[in-house]
């Protein structure tokens, strides 16, 4: 019984990681870039939703749409200003470090604009929770919504990438930028579109994360962002189903580790997973090992 409820708590936590990891994996798969500022775009999305819902009093669906629009715009702006100029930089580390810089910038801008007082987020999900075994095991309504949404987004993304022209362009750009450009694909536009979609997803992830864990500060996105990155690596970075699998798996590992080993070692266990995965199977569970033939 304890194991079952821990498992369900793990899936609950993992579903939050999964949605965040989808954004990470998408951007890495297409633009070959780890956007460490992703966690903070999530935080911005949550804040916009909070402000629109609480201060302006607008309905939930409008708040979410506004938040997606703002985050998408933010993603495109950040890409144009911070990442594009460094696309041809000598070292691929330059973009990574810039991403960390953008992360701090977003955190401190949020600190300035929204203030550091903790805000209590009202959950946008309002169904009743599912009770099993006479109430001994409870599945939160947010968990169900998270998982369902995650699967829907996963399916939509896979369809988009494989069936539409813009999606195919993305695949082409990810394989070989130069060749794609020669074929007449607008590389800048495609990468901007990738970031736009990734950031739009981040907004949704922010709303769902804060519905499950209602405290909101400028630093709320930071740790879940890092853990979702670990989840994306675990599942296979660049693979969309891998992000989902990695997220859920990491959530379960974290909760089971905390329950049966020690609450104090929870984070240590999560990050040792990263090290183990990188040592044993660096491409992750669902990742493909692409050998370059010369």
């Amino acid at each position, binding site marked *: 019984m*304890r194991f079952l409820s821990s498992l369900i*708590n793990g899936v609950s936590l993992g579903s939050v990681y999964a949605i965040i990891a989808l954004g990470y994996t998408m951007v890495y798969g297409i633009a070959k870039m780890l956007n460490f500022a992703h966690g903070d775009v999530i935080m911005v999305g949550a804040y916009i939703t909070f402000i629109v819902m609480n201060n302006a009093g607008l309905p939930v669906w409008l708040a979410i749409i506004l938040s997606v629009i703002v985050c998408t715009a933010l993603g495109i702006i950040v890409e144009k200003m911070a990442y594009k100029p460094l696309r041809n930089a000598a070292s691929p580390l330059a973009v990574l470090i810039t991403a960390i810089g953008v992360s701090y910038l977003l955190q401190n801008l949020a600190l300035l604009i929204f203030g550091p007082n903790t805000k209590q987020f009202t959950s946008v999900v309002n169904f009743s929770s599912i009770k099993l075994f006479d109430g001994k095991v*409870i599945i939160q309504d947010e968990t169900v919504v998270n998982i369902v949404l995650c699967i829907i987004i996963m399916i939509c993304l896979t369809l988009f990438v494989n069936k539409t022209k813009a999606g195919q362009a993305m695949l082409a750009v990810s394989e070989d930028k130069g060749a794609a450009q020669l074929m007449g694909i607008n590389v800048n536009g495609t990468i901007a579109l990738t970031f736009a979609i990734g950031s739009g997803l981040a907004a949704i992830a922010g709303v769902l994360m804060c519905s499950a864990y209602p405290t909101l500060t400028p630093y*709320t996105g930071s740790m879940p962002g890092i853990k979702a990155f670990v989840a994306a690596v675990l599942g296979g970075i660049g693979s969309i189903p891998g992000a989902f699998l990695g997220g859920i798996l990491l959530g379960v590992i974290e909760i089971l580790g905390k*329950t049966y080993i020690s609450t104090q070692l929870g*984070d240590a266990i999560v990050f040792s997973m990263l090290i183990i995965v990188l040592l044993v199977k660096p491409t992750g569970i669902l990742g493909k090992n692409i050998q370059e033939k010369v």
Partner: protein
Amino acid sequence: MKKFNKVIGLSLVMAMLAGTVTACGSSSDNAGQNTQTDSTNDGADVSSDGTAVWKIGGIGPLTGGNAIYGQAAMNGAQIAIDEINAAGGINGYQIVFNPQDDETDNDKSINAYNTLKDWGMQILMGSVTSGCCTAVSDYAVEDNLFLLTPSASSVTSITYDNAFRVCFSDPNQGVGAADYIADNGLATKVAVIYDNSDVYSTGIYDKFAAEAAAKGLEIVSAESFNADNKTDFSVQLAAAKDAGADLVFLPIYYSEASLILAQAASMEYAPTFFGCDGMDGILTMENFDTSLAEGVILLTPFAADATDDLTVKFVSTYQDKFGETPNQFAADGYDAIYIIKAALEKSGATPDMSVSDICEAMKTAMLEITVDGLTGTGITWSADGEPSKAPRAVEIVDGVYKAIQ
């Protein structure tokens, strides 16, 4: 043309140098004296019209997750200062108060301390939180500056002999909590959820565990979280629930407590929650559903609904001035100023004495005074800086604190 440019450049450089040398005259003196403990500069603390004033500095979290405490302490202190100034000041001198924000961050607290020193602070009321007070006290002792913390409850916060406190310390809180639970028969099986990255939380927990063992309380589950992981408490709550605890002791701050209450409610686990002074402020969190806090008990020596004259007057002044009911941190700030007044009056010190002399005088006076304040009657101090007064508890009923005897 080149020679002309050279002449212009050279003359500009000379002008600049002349400017820095003259303008820097007074500030370089200050820069040198800030590192000495017996500088002559801080004796001449004057207000803008030239009369001597008492300069009291305040350090606390005015922004951030613990802003409720810092703002309350400064507000309470301001009310006391306004009252004292209106009645003629301390030993005939008016008080000027300068509250600084530390965002509950040790480094920022030290920066605030230095800012206040530059301003000419003679007495420090702060820091409000334990970790920051411990950090600042290392600097205050080097300057031999009198430090009175309204609410830092860790033992390490007042290790030096120039530091005293208004509130009860963590050992007292941990011991007091265990005693209260055992003596009032609130529960036999107790679970604890604490923050193991915070000196406040671990300090209370350690003493609580020891006293609980002595009093026959069974701690069936003791789980922790840390500063990076304070959003998901499902594991800790599940452990408490499975162990059959009917009381969960939470020696933590209100932001995390609010999440624990919400998560316990959604897992349909309804034990009695018992907190310490860090729980205070939970009712004033923006957008918090206060029905979740129904039945929570917390240790606090101040209850706004108490009926004694001093409390009633303080509460109504605070409500008029700041638009909300004061919490115990406001009461701590208020009492801190009155304690400083009592010590200064006992010692007969004046603002033209040096910071170090004022401190020495106050150190002796603190051991001789007895203060009746909002947070206790007949409060006295011992040389280790600890006050002696008894902890009381309040329960949250219908979204407000209700004193329990």
